[in-house]
């Protein structure tokens, strides 16, 4: 199905199932431990072996030799495969750093060997006996130092944009801001580690893994292994979080495949937690400069956003300026990105790449600008709202209700109770409120599905879509149920299998809208097949209560299917609506914090997000997405930072004791409100993504609340107490 024109009324609009607060259909499997995650697949007829990876001890250089002799004598050992054994491998199309093979070391903890034994414990013990000799080389590890060498990246990343004459307007502006902000490297820190099982059958391989994007992985796995994609079967039906860290093929399936080949048995490989931060990808650090010029009435006349980030050669920039091209009005504008070469692990997508760190900076800048203007920051944002793409005013937003989100949020949160900076105290707590806009583009991806109807009236959806904890199973079941006129109890959903039609996958908050649209398209085909089989005129056929109706003829779905059953399969593809109309999601984040006057500890007291993201397919799973993202933003604002050892080039705090993510005590109260809206330009579902919106801007709202509490402006994340303590009031 080609989606070329705005959606008109369709069966989804019945809202009998879609939009209802239906609990996760896979919830019982998860709460009873029956949802099988990658490492847990177990066929009692197979003799699994266990692989343990060895990571590079240097950040850059060459492996000169690997001595496996001691490991090969260890108890239970079945085999050792080293990076030198396999030689240079073709790199996956979507990988920047190579995952395995050859002598070159590009980053710390790059996989250099996998040790296979009868048990996990034996493999781990033997892995410690592998002796690797390196010829280290000097690397570049410090973004601040390399900033001077940064270059404009590949044009495909659209590094620069401009409209009007920024410099002239900025120098003429009555009120200006020119400030630098920094965001640190961050780790996805998902609960389920990267893990895979590989089992060969002749020249075909089955890989159970933890992947957000089945087809991307399958393709890059085949390239890396130098084999035919058709001979790779990939399974990832349950994923314990990804956040972008499982978008691209990782080392574990590659190691498992080589190991399984070497020992002639299926092999399980999980990345140990201390290896994950440096072996995989991370959100790259940024240095951002923002300049805003405005008239005294608060109208922005000039806005510029520049960002510097680093990556390995061949990598890309953190696109932290993108939202600034679209979020606020202003006739004169420019954005620019610069990319430095860094020999740290690969920087790549982490939940809301670009917007998350970009808004961390921009939304502090906007708060600062409002203060300079003597304006309320909510009103300043509203004054500079735009209904068109400000760089290309002929291009409207498909639907934009930032103002609605901010007004509703301000009312609900009690924004009018906000006081001047550093004036509100409750005992030892300095109390402050902050606001920020949320903004994230609505991306769409082609997405396929197959929908089967059987003689029991059961509708089965098959697609290689993934559920990374987001609720894909449930909203897909709701979509099929709505389309076929049944309840979700009559729908079975099968995901994450490369034998199924290729879907959007999970990423860029495109999964829910794209994948359900693919299911919609397949259901349209199935409805046509049913109507055709029954000889109904498909234009006036109704599907409801498990029946197909046309005029006064009524046939039960199970009867319609018959013994042979019926199938519909299709892929949703997207026309030009994303080009003619800017499709984005919006929100307002409101946060209240307390800062301990003595210690500078910042603790969140309450958070509210008001989101405008098209039709909400399921308010339970959507809310979970938003509160999870708000929690992630709390970590990003207050303590998450991969600490770089700039001498040796690695992230030092590479476990979950050193890299602190929020715990329950950090998140006392969260509320989410969804604006009641639809966006017919987005898809037949009239929905948009919401999985990343909740993270966009929230850290800045926390930063702004901290400023309001203390009067201390911190522009370098995370806002830890050491950055406040020098300016806190005297308590001695």
């Amino acid at each position, binding site marked *: 199905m080609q989606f070329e024109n705005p959606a008109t009324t369709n069966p989804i609009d019945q809202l009998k199932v879609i939009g209802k607060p239906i609990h996760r259909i896979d919830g019982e499997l998860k709460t009873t431990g029956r949802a099988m995650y990658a490492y847990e697949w177990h066929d009692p007829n197979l003799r699994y072996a266990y692989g343990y990876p060895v990571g590079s001890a240097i950040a850059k250089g060459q492996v000169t030799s690997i001595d496996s002799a001691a490991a090969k004598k260890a*108890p239970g050992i079945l085999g050792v495969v080293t990076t030198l054994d396999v030689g240079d491998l073709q790199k996956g199309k979507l990988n920047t750093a190579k995952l395995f093979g050859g002598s070159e070391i590009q980053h710390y903890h790059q996989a250099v060997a996998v040790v296979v034994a009868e048990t996990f414990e034996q493999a781990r013990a033997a892995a410690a006996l592998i002796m690797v000799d390196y010829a280290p080389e000097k690397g570049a590890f410090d973004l601040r130092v390399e900033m001077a060498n940064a270059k404009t990246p590949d044009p495909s990343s659209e590094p620069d944009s401009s409209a009007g004459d920024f410099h002239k307007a900025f120098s003429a502006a009555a009120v200006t801001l020119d400030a630098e902000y920094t965001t640190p490297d961050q780790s996805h820190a998902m609960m389920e580690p990267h893990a895979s099982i590989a089992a060969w059958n002749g020249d075909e391989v089955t890989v159970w893994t933890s992947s957000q994007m089945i087809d991307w992985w399958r393709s890059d796995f085949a390239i890396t292994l130098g084999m035919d994609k058709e001979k790779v079967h990939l399974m990832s039906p349950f994923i314990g979080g990804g956040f972008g860290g499982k978008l691209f093929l990782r080392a574990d399936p590659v190691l498992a495949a080589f190991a399984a080949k070497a020992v002639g048995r299926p092999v399980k490989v999980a990345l140990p937690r*201390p290896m994950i931060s440096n072996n995989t990808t991370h959100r790259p650090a940024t240095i951002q400069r923002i300049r805003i010029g405005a008239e005294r009435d608060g109208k922005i006349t000039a806005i510029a956003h520049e960002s510097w980030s680093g990556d390995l050669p061949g990598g890309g920039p953190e696109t932290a300026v993108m939202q600034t091209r679209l979020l606020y009005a202003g006739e004169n504008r420019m954005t620019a990105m610069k990319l430095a070469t860094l020999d740290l692990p690969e920087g790549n997508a982490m939940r809301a790449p670009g917007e998350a760190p970009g808004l961390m900076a921009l939304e502090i800048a906007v708060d600062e600008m409002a203060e300079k203007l003597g304006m309320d920051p909510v009103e300043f944002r509203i004054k500079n709202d735009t209904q068109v793409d400000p760089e290309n005013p002929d291009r409207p937003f498909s639907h934009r209700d930032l103002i609605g989100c901010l007004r509703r949020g301000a009312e609900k949160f009690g924004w009018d109770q906000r006081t001047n900076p550093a004036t509100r105290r409750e005992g030892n707590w300095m109390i402050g409120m902050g606001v920020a806009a949320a903004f994230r583009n609505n991306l769409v991806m082609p997405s396929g599905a197959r929908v089967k109807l059987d003689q029991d009236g059961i509708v089965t959806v098959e697609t290689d879509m993934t559920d990374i904890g987001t609720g894909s199973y449930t909203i897909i079941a709701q979509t099929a149920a709505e389309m076929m006129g049944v309840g979700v109890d009559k729908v079975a959903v099968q995901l994450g299998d490369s034998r199924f039609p290729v879907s959007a996958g999970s990423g860029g908050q495109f999964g829910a809208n794209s994948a359900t649209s693919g299911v919609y398209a397949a259901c349209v085909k199935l409805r046509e097949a049913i109507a055709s089989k029954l000889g109904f005129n498909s234009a006036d056929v109704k599907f409801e209560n498990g029946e197909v109706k046309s005029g006064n003829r009524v046939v039960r779905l199970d009867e319609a299917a018959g013994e042979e059953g019926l199938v519909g399969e299709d892929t949703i593809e997207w026309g030009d609506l994303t080009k003619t109309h800017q499709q984005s999601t919006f929100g307002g984040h409101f946060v209240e914090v307390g800062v301990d006057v003595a210690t500078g500890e910042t603790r969140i007291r309450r958070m509210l997000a008001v989101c405008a993201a098209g039709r909400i397919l399921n308010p339970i799973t959507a809310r979970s997405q938003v509160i999870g993202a708000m929690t992630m933003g709390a970590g990003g604002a207050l303590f998450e930072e991969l600490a770089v050892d700039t001498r040796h080039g690695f992230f030092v705090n590479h476990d979950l004791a050193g890299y602190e993510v929020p715990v329950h005590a950090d998140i006392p109260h969260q509320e989410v409100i969804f604006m009641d809206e639809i966006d017919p330009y987005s898809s037949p579902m009239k929905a948009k993504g919401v999985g990343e919106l909740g993270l966009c801007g929230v850290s800045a709202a926390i930063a702004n609340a901290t400023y309001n509490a203390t009067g201390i402006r911190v522009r370098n994340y995370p806002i830890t107490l050491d950055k406040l303590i020098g300016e806190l009031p005297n*308590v001695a």
Partner: protein
Amino acid sequence: MRAFTYERASSVEAAAVAAAQNADAKFIAGGTNLLDLMKLEIEKPSHLIDVNGIDLDTIERTQDGGLRIGALVRNTDLAADVTVRRDYGLLSRALVAGASGQLRNKATTAGNLLQRTRCPYFYDPNQPCNKRNPGSGCSAIGGVTRHLGVVGVSEACLATHPSDMAVAMRALDAVVETVKPNGEKRSIPMADFHRLPGDTPHIETALEHGEFITNVVLPSPIGGKQIYRKVRDRASYAFALVSVAAVIHSDGSGKVAVGGVAHKPWRIEAAEAELPNGARAMASALLADARPTEENKFKISLTERTLAAVLSEAKG
């Protein structure tokens, strides 16, 4: 993790004898730190002596009105003990400030004292570390040091001791009771139990090989306001940037130990004479010899400010 042999000891004597027979042996109780370190091969005992079966899990009054805490009393039980909560509130508060409920259910009194540092370089076997590999050098010096020590540090080591409980015990003048493999008993004041790193940071306590902690004894209750204030980046389940354990009497005198700043719970009794002069005076005396890094110098003012908050709370 290296393969190891394992036995259960049913008495202190049996445990001590078993340890004496194997220079690589370690006692294991809760295992909440030891097992993690074994997985990373930072600890490589060839033999584990499981002491959980030894009858040392009670809390009893001593003859002079103090409290004898069995080495195997779990942190949860110790924190919840009615006598501890009434007479040694500082200890109870410090315990519940540490780790998580699950860990406190497993962790023991003796094991808590024997926790090893959380220095990230100690935890990465690829990096030189004088604790892990004496003489290999300290990678923390010149590296990422925000969490590390500011006082009592050496050219060989910047590590801190991670325990909360130990800081409270130091302020409460606890004494560690031990038995050596030859049967000799010792009472080691908390002041002497943990060592400063010097040039031998791998030697962390006064214990000899095979010496077994049987109890920790608290003196008779000293009253006062007992406050444990732990400062950390996230609200729970994090190691202290700085913690202050204080017993403050109504006349302004008191006892103060500080965590998160040194290789051991940091207390200088002489500095306590400055308490009536306020937090700044006290902190100056306590940290007079501090040698912080650029990254962790905030701990100096943080200690002073936290102490100020504690003294203010004690007055209130």
